[in-house]
Every structure is written in structure tokens, then in C-alpha cells.
């Protein structure tokens, strides 16, 4: 199968396995976990080991700034 992470449209997806980092993010934006944008579990760009409930850190090559970091919650 094709390695989708190599495609130029696909930004880097990093699984946050450290819960404290997730907490930090949620605190910074003052939101709940479920308020995050979602990503489906069967998304081809998702790291294999990601499970529903995990948070993925996405480092986009931004059009308006250097890099933009966003987070998505893995859902079913």
C-alpha cells in the first residue's frame, strides 16, 4: 500500500501518548477533550497505534505562519 504520510498534502500526525501534554493543551484553550476537532479511527493518515479517545498532534505547514499545531481527538 502507498505510504500516505509521504504525500505533500498530509501533515505530520503525532500520537500524544503522554496524558499530561493533553491536559496542558486542554487547559491552555480552556476546553474539554470532546471540544477538539475530530479524526476518524480509520483515517489513512492516522498512526497505527492510535485508539479512540487518543489525541493526535498535527503539525501543519501553515500558509499564514511558520508551522501551525492543531490537535484532533480520535473518534470511532
Amino acid at each position, binding site marked *: *500500500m*502507498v*505510504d*500516505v504520510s*509521504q*504525500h*505533500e*498534502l*498530509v*501533515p505530520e*500526525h503525532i500520537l500524544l501518548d503522554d496524558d499530561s501534554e493533553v491536559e496542558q493543551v486542554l487547559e491552555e484553550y480552556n476546553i474539554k477533550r470532546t471540544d477538539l*476537532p*475530530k*479524526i*476518524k479511527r480509520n*483515517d*489513512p*493518515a*492516522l498512526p497505527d497505534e492510535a485508539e479512540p479517545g487518543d489525541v493526535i498532534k*498535527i503539525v*501543519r*505547514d*501553515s*500558509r*499564514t*505562519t*511558520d508551522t501551525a499545531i492543531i490537535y*484532533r481527538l480520535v*473518534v470511532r
Partner: protein
Amino acid sequence: MLSRAATRRWNPMTEYEYVTNDIEAIVEDADLPRRLKDRVYEVIDERGGVTTEQADEIARAVSSQYNDTRVDALDPVGTVSAQSIGEPGTQMTMNTFHYAGVAEIDVTQGLPRLIELVDARKTPDTPMMTVYLEDEYAIDRERAHEVVWSIESTKILALGDVSTNVADMVVRVDLNEDTLLERWPTVDDADVIASEIAETIEDALGVDTRRSGTAIEFGPSEPSYRELLQLVEQLRDVVFKGIEEVTRVVIRKEQLDDGTEEFVLYTEGSAFGDVLAIEGVDASRTTCNNIHEIHKNLGIEAAREAIINETVNTLEEQGLDDVNVRHMMLVADIMTNRGTIESIGRHGISGSKDSVLARAAFEVTVNHLLSAAIHGKADRLDGVIENVIVGKPVSIGTGDVKLRMGSISTDGGKPADD
């Protein structure tokens, strides 16, 4: 645009003659995005260098200007985006067909394309792919053609002549040997290809074939005129090589930024997933104009990028390139927020709002009110439209600022009343 940003981790010193270490330190220290810092370096360099004091002043001025132009809290960004995309939309042509650069391929442009994108149609009106090739496939025309033949769907009429003999109840296919060898560049025996074709016919139509050289004959099991004609009809639709969805491929030589040339394929019709797996196709750059195919094969983040790219290109094509990209980014963010592509409109974003009144205000008012009444729905009145309807201040801009009155006790300074 994207890849450039990623590779641009250079040292300003080497790029600009007049940018000294001190100036660099000052500018890098400012709270500015990379893009603006680069602009600052460019201007300083053009001016032939500045003193460190001047550099400091410039950095301050730029950051204060930057901070001034940032969006304020409680700004209705969605409404502004809607207006900013909607107004240029009124200037767009109602219907134009043609693709920039490749005149041979027709692609929906202008307003219909923009509507198609925000409606998130399952298949675009004119699906197309831009297929980039890798290594020698991109340089050698022969090799590039190999990829063309494995993408473009090949039907029987492209390979030879079909004739029906009613007296003997047979369909006869006379394959053109040269065409076969051209379209199957990896096989150099026309006989092998012909037997392959005969097999494909047997599988697709469920008949027995007789073959001598490049001539293939077959007929219905029972003599029947109707069935004979039906077989011919079916034969015309059988795909012998390539991808069924792709009806045409145009090959073009294009100049890269670094001056070298490469072959790029443009296709009419798209099957993104299939094409990515074909040997010789550069799976890191190939794209298509169907955002759902991108979503399926590359994921939601790639779909977001594709939506932005497509909307920006559509506007640019119409000479409306002064629409700020942030508006398109906001639209794409909203459309991909739930992990799948949702359309803007009553079947997507607007239709899935929590508030009954907000939905009713948009489209099919009666249906929403009726079903809300039947199910005894409540409305929390925390959106904009709901509050306009009931005549309360809306919770955006100054409308969301609330004053709290209370007395301050003299001893601790803490509010006595909360």
C-alpha cells in the same frame, strides 16, 4: 507554496548581504511569523542595510502593526468569511469550462465549481487528476507512456475492428497488432496479448472464444440474433487495460522551478486510490479534484488542504485572488471539523446545529419548527440568529460583554457580592 515553507530553514546571513548578526538577532527576537520576518530581511537588504537602532524600530513597528491587524476576541469571523467569499462569488462567471494550461481537458470552473466544493458533492461535475511521475518515468517519454496506458481505460474499439456475421452467428474481433504492442509496452509478443484479451472477453461476457493470431471469434451459445447484438454492446464496454473511470489522459511536458523538465499527466475522470498504486506514479505529489477521494485515501487533514487549494485556485482562476486565504482556511476547518467532510448548508454544517431556531432560520423553516414542537425541543438561545429572532443582544462583539455590578468591601478589596 507548502513545500517551500518547510525547506526554508536557512540562515538570513547567507541569503542577504546587508543583514548583520545584530539585525538578525533583533528581528528574530520579535514576536512575528516567519513570513513577516523574511519580508523584514528583504526590505532591509533592499535598503542596503540599517543600523541596529533602526532595525529595532522596524521590528517594533512591524510587530505593533501585526498585533493591530489580528482578529479581536468575539469577532464574528465566520460571518466575515461568508461575506468575503460571497461578494467575489457574485462577480464570477456562471459557467466556464477549461482548465488553465491544459486546454484539451475541460474542468468546471467559476461559481459552479465553488458551489460544488462547499456543497461537498460526492463526485465533481468534471473529475480530473494531475498525475506526477517519478524518476525515469518523468523524463523519458516512452516510460511516461507506459503509465498513460496503465491509467487510460482501453476499450475494444481502440484495439481493433469488431464485425458481426449474422449468418454464422459470430462476433469477430480483428485486433491491430501495432496497437497491441504499443499499449502493452512490457510484452513484445502480440500473440500473448491477444490471448490475454480473449481471456478477458471470456470472463466478462461468459462466452467461449476461438482465436487464431490476432483474430478472436465468439458467439452466443444458442443462435439468437438479439443475444448476438447484446454481446457486441457488452463488448464495447469491457475495459481491457487501465482504469475504468479514466476516459482520457493528456501528457504534457512541464518546466520545474529549477529549470528541469518533466512529464505530467492530466486525466479526465479520476480514481485516485488506484492511480497512487501504479508503478511510476509519484505518490507524494499526485492529486485529484475530488475532495472525497482525497479524504478516503489521504485522510481528513489532506482533505482540508485540498479544499483550501481548490477554492483558492477557483477564485484565482477568475481573477479574484485578493480574497484572503484565511477565509478559505476557516471554511475548510469547519468542513473537516468532525473528521469527515461536511457540506456547508442544510445537509451539513447548518443542518447539524443544536439550536432549533438557528436551523429554522436557515432553510425549510416549517419542518424544523414542526419536528421541534413534536419532540418538545428547547432552545438555549446562545447563538446569533436565535437572539436576533427573539430580540436580544447577540453574543458576539460588544454584545457579549456583560457588566457585573457589586460593592467592594473596604477591608479586603474582595467583591462582597458575586
